[in-house]
């Protein structure tokens, strides 16, 4: 059963990657100067978020998740890819990072917000970065 749903997930993943690419193309063509400024601010968060996510002392997400560009990842948790399609609502993504136990009481993912493993600001940054994946 698990295998089947995994396959399903991977099919939807492929589709969403394709969709995401198409969207990207449209956006980059149509984005005006205002949009560019905003994307600069966003990309600063994304950059900082990547540092938090990769640092062993902070997020250490690689202990469990495969992430693009990360070395020697664990395989306890699902790979973090095409996140916008899995979390259309970024608030839900932030909530998962803040306390995974809400969604899955038996989760082995540390409650980064509830246990103050990283700061609220760092959670915002990580969320922005993960959402960009």
């Amino acid at each position: 059963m698990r295998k089947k749903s995994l396959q399903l997930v991977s099919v939807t993943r492929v589709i969403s990657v394709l969709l995401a690419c198409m969207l990207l193309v449209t956006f980059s063509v149509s984005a005006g100067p205002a949009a560019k400024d905003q994307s600069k601010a966003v990309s600063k968060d994304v950059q900082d978020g990547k540092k938090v996510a990769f640092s062993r002392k902070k997020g250490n997400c690689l202990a469990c998740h495969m992430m693009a560009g990360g070395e020697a990842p664990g395989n306890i948790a699902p790979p973090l890819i095409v996140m916008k399609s899995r979390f259309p609502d970024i608030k839900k993504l932030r909530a998962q990072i803040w306390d995974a136990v809400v969604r899955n009481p038996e989760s082995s993912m540390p409650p980064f917000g509830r246990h103050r493993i990283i700061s609220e600001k760092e959670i915002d940054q990580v969320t922005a970065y993960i959402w960009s994946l």
Partner: protein
Amino acid sequence: MKKLLLLLSVLVMVMGFSLAVHASPEEDRLVFRKFYEKRFPNVATEDFINGAYSIDKAGRENWEAIEEFPPYEPFMERGREMWEKPFANGKGYKECFPDGPGVAHKYPHWDKKQQMVMTLPLAINQCREANGEKALKYKKGSINDILSYMAFESRGQITNVVVPKNDSSALDAYEQGKKFYYTRRGQLNFSCAHCHLQNAGMNLRAEMLGPALGHTTHWPTYRSKWGTVGTLHRRFTGCNKQVRAKPFKAQGEEYRNLEYFLTYMSNGLPLNGPGARK
């Protein structure tokens, strides 16, 4: 039906509801064992005494090479000398352990008189103190020498922890240990079971999480990371620290009860200490 029940109880255990279910230690043990046998159908049950190397092919080759020249041998040798050498009062370990050094399989056990779980390191220190010698430290140092020697002399003996039925405090101690095992702790919020049950066989970064079945058969253990031989309670300390939890006292009540529960889970498995791990 029986299969279904078993599956259910395994599920219950993995989901961490085991505390709500009042099973006997023997029922707990069967569920525990079946869980790993099901998850790793290609591993012979006895091979779980080799920890992560029972399921990690690459790690195993490296380990087998290490075992060619066992790094714990000098410790065993020093331990043999300790065993032979009388204390200042003329007596020695031999008087405290009249059945000889190969008695690791008799520990931990419920000590009715002292109303507590008796472990081998504690028995060694009680022996020393009764004879006017200073107690040894419980995590590092020469306690590992004597333990290495006694572990080696106990190889092949079978784990056989008993929770006596006629003393409810013994069952309480077992239940405390079990509760400890399934309780989340530390800033990172893990229970022992999260890593060694739920995620056994998975990789935490590049480290394969080993099955808990067989976790108690090979102590003390030489760890390359430590560069020396260390006790089981030293390992407990490390696993607590890993999740940023405050570790408990080596040979304190919490860890002794934990050892009681965890060793019971390995009943039936042969002893193979001292061990070597990366």
